[in-house]
C-alpha cells in the first residue's frame, strides 16, 4: 500500500472542488544514484476519482509529473457529506485508495 493521500473536497454554489496531494517518489528512471547507477522509473500511472461511486476524473501520469503529485479539479453537484474516493496505481502495481467527505 502506498502512503496516504491528503484530499480536501468542498462544495460552493453547486460546484465541488477537490484538491489531492499524493505521496509518491515519481522517479523518472533517468536519475542516477550516488554510484552512478540509474534509479529505475517508479511513478503513478493512473488515478481515478469517484463521487459517491461515480467517476468524476480519470488521469494518466507519465514520469514528468512532480514528486508528491498535486491535483485540483472541479465537478458539478455534490453536497456536504458525499463521499469522494481517489485511487491510484503505480508502475510497480502498488495502489492507494483514500476517501473523504465533502465539507
Amino acid at each position, binding site marked *: 500500500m502506498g502512503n496516504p493521500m491528503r484530499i480536501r473536497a468542498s462544495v460552493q454554489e453547486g*460546484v465541488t472542488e477537490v484538491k489531492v496531494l499524493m505521496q509518491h517518489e*515519481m522517479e*523518472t528512471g*533517468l*536519475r*542516477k544514484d550516488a554510484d552512478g547507477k*540509474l534509479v529505475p522509473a517508479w511513478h503513478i*500511472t*493512473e*488515478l*481515478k476519482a469517484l463521487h459517491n*461511486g*461515480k*467517476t*468524476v*476524473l*480519470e*488521469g*494518466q*501520469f*507519465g*514520469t*514528468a*509529473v*512532480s*514528486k508528491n*503529485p*498535486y*491535483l*485540483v*479539479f*472541479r*465537478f*458539478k*453537484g455534490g453536497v456536504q457529506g458525499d463521499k469522494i*474516493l481517489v*485511487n491510484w*496505481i503505480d*508502475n*510497480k*502495481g502498488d*495502489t492507494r*485508495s483514500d476517501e473523504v467527505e465533502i465539507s
Partner: protein
Amino acid sequence: MQFMAHQKIWASFYNAGGNLINMERRKALKTGGGLGLLGLFTAIGLIRPGMAWAKYEASAFDAKSMAETLDALGVVTPESNLSVHLTVPEIAENGAVVPVSVASFLEHTEQIYILVEKNPNVLAANFVFPDGTESFVTTRVKMRETSSVIALVKANGKFYRATKEVKVTAGGCGG
C-alpha cells in the same frame, strides 16, 4: 466492495508482469491486428472495458519527441485556440515543481493533455473528463530545461492547443 475487486485486478495484472503486457500491447498496436493480451483479458472478462488501465496510452507516454507523441495520440497538428487557457509561470526557479493549470472553454471537452516539448518524454499527463466535471485541472510537472508547455485539448473529437514558454533556471529531472 467493488473497488477492492478493481484493486485486486489491477494488482494481479501488474504482478503478471506490467512490462510484458506493455510490450504485448505495443506489439498488438504495431501489427495492427489481433486481440493482444489486453484484448484477450478484456474478452475473457478479467478486465472490463472502461476500466482505467485499459486505456493507459503507454506508447504516447514513452514517445521521445513532440512528433512521436502526437503520432501516438493520433493527433494531426492541433490548432491553437483561445478557448484553451494555459496558466504557467514565466520563470520556474525549480524545474522539479512547475505548476500548470489548464482550463478549456470548448464545449464537449473530453480530455486535456499536458506536454513539455523538451522533456525526455514529452507527454506529462492526461486527464479524462466525464460529463459534469469541469474541463479544468491544476497539477505540477517536472521540466528538464526551458521549454514550451502545451495544453492539448480534445473536444468533440478534435484537438486544440495552447502553448506557453516556461524559463527554467534549475532543471527538474536530476541525473
